[in-house]
């Protein structure tokens, strides 16, 4: 077994190369710069393409160009950079081009600071640009998952002709853990729709324009159909101690890791807590949350934002059970002790008979 201690940021580049990515375009921003730096080394040394662009706007358009020409492409950035890519993400979706975009979230709004937040959730999960589209969004919670998710992202992107976003955070990127460099090297196949500058692909057109409303309507409906298929095929989550739980956390990324510790601590105190950790947030594990709600188990969303994912949890359980929110903003993370105290307090309150009690 090939195991190396490495940062999530580095693991993403390893995963990309093992996943058949040939082109990395980047623009530095903390806390994602390490990904570009590792890519600059490994993509160049392996005869792949690394290029530092002049802006994130150029980055996303270079992705658009290279993906049009059939390449497996990626970039990595953080909030301000992803925001600049909004128009390009919309064009990628409109032209149905596959691409992989990593967002190492930092705290906002504006320049904010470089510590972890999960406040890009709406921007990334709901698309980031104009139009009725979405990005497949994977949420790794370890260095190993940074590797695994990035590796498989290219296959997923090619299958559905969609952008796959890896929505991570500064901690998951900075943390070193053992990573197993596993499986065969994957490769993209020739795409019958791409433009290769040869006779066979000469008739091909990459465009997001549909100058007739019925055609654009059909295009939009096809996109929504694809999203339904995606939800069926790749929705993914981990359940920790949910089977006998009387209270279940919902959290992704670094916060899921913290919640895992809180679950253990609560159980030591006799409170049967569990954790549902989405590994995909688009598609969202709606059915799994619904099943927990059916068991009448209250939920607690722990999130480094103003409740952006919590809103999706609310939509999933449709008011059937209480959804407590433990929200932290600005770059801080809640400690295990803080969460423990807050949850115990809320559970005691709701036992006394709150609105749902």
């Amino acid at each position: 077994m090939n195991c190396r201690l490495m940062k999530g940021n580095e693991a993403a580049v390893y995963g990309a190369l093992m996943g058949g990515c040939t082109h990395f375009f980047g623009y530095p921003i903390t806390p994602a710069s390490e990904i570009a730096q590792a890519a600059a080394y490994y993509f160049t040394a392996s005869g792949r393409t690394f290029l530092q662009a002049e802006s994130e706007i150029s980055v996303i358009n270079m992705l658009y160009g290279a993906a049009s020409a059939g390449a497996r492409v990626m970039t990595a950035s953080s909030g301000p950079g992803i925001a600049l890519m909004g128009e390009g993400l919309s064009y990628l979706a409109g032209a149905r081009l596959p691409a992989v975009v990593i967002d190492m979230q930092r705290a906002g709004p504006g320049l904010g600071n470089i510590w972890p937040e999960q406040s890009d959730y709406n921007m990334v999960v709901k698309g980031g640009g104009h139009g009725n589209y979405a990005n497949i969004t994977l949420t790794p919670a370890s260095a190993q998952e940074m590797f695994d998710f990035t590796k498989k992202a290219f296959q997923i992107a090619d299958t559905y002709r969609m952008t796959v976003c890896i929505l991570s955070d500064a901690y998951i990127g900075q943390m070193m853990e053992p990573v197993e460099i596993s499986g065969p090297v994957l490769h993209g196949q020739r795409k019958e729709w791409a433009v290769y500058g040869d006779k066979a692909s000469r008739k091909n057109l990459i465009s997001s324009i549909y100058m007739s409303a019925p055609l654009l309507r059909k295009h939009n409906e096809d996109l929504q159909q694809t999203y339904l298929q995606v939800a069926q095929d790749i929705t993914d989550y981990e359940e920790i101690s949910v089977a006998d739980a009387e209270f279940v956390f919902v959290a992704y990324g670094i916060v899921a890791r913290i919640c895992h510790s809180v679950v253990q601590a609560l159980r030591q105190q006799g409170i049967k807590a569990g954790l549902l950790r989405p590994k995909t947030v688009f598609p969202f594990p709606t059915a799994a949350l619904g099943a927990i709600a059916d068991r009448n188990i209250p939920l607690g969303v722990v999130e480094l934002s103003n409740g952006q994912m919590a809103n999706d949890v609310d939509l999933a359980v449709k008011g059937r059970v209480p959804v407590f929110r433990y929200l932290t903003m600005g770059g801080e993370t809640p400690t295990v002790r803080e969460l423990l105290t807050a949850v115990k307090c809320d559970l005691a309150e709701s036992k006394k008979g709150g609105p749902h009690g």
Partner: protein
Amino acid sequence: MAELIQRFGKAQSFYDGYTRKGIEIETTHYCPGCGHGTIQKLIGEAIDDLGIQDRTIFLSPVGCAVFAYYYYDTGNIQCSHGRAPAVGTGVKRTVKDAVVISYQGDGDLAGIGMTEIIHAANRGEPITVFFINNAIYGMTGGQMAPTTPLGQITQTTPFGRDVARDGRPIGMVELMNALVPPVYIERCSVATSQGIIKTRKAIRKALQAQIDGIGFSFVEILSPCPTNWGMSPVKARSWMEKEMTHHFPLGLVRDTISSSTGKATSIPYPYLDDAQLVELLTGSAAVPLLKDDIPQVTHKVKIAGFGGQGVLSAGELLATCGMTEALHVSWLPSYGPEMRGGSANVSVILSDQEIGSPLVDHPEVLLAFNGPSLDLFEPKMVSGATIVVNSSIIQRQVERTDVNVYYIPATDIAKNEGLLSAANVVMVTAYLLISNALPLETLVRCIPLVLRKKSFLDTNIAIVNKTEAYVKAHPMEKQ
């Protein structure tokens, strides 16, 4: 229609009818007297004559030429507003033999897309850019462009372009000429038939430069927009001659094609096949996991000190030791501005259980390299914790009485071996010895995996031995 086409010699690289995307039209979408049609015909003929139809990838901009893909029977990519040079960069770096044509208007290239064109030119991307300067935003209905002449009335300059408010028209050819890499820069005009002949030549030269792999070429073409200028096609042409060529002098500005030896290619790294790639990624640092009898432990460790004391690599060493003992491990640094102040700390967890939170808010172990670190973390330690103090640097004693403390002159021990920077090895060794967390052999085996400078390996091992001797001579007093 087919017969007409034959008579007038339609370029083969043009489609016969413009039926793209379900819109059944057979005429162009350009207004009568528009320059776009003339220029695109010249480009189509050049594609035919140069024999590059199959290789061509035509980038349509956003502007009146947005539907250029209706016409060209070549590979086509429609780009977002102004970004075609970035798209072209992506294409060209994927399919090197393709002939990439970026066709852009003045709003597209000189307005919103100024950054992309300058940087593509400055990288010397071997693509061809045709810049259609009609001094106006045509598609959106006649607003001011970066190239609109002073005084000209447009939808957004109803009283004329005002130099104080709007600045001067931008000369793109002149800007391009300030950059070193472009191999061909020319400004032409389609106002007159001589101008069209010159434009025809320039288009061919610029494309040939790309075909020959020589470099970035840029042709600006002054072009009429009778519709938004509010003129007849004839009047528009005479206005061009009078007004535009005055602001935008025609002519060849640079042609270094014949003296160029081709785009300076960067040092080529060969494309690695699967086995070579895996070797590159896993190669030297692959770590064998020893799976038998996993120690039943959890250590939540904080290591803290000045930046430069090797705090982060001490953590890496400890985590690597844990990993090779088949423990779960995590290593999480403080980072960013936090570190610029000169202090660094890292949280390391070793456990036989899967690790939840990698954050160590309340450490069970502290390796304190300097005073401020001890000040910061002493109050946060759990009761019964262990603190290893670098007594070479930290003058004070630990105040808490509910923790175990071990004082060791780590910096002095390292200095005596001639490797000041290895105080971190002393600290980790001391911790492993006093805690019995992991065997010393594991540490010795892992040092080469973490050490950046392999030539210091022997010294590091010597330091481990010196530390062991010190700890033997100074056993920890249990609280």
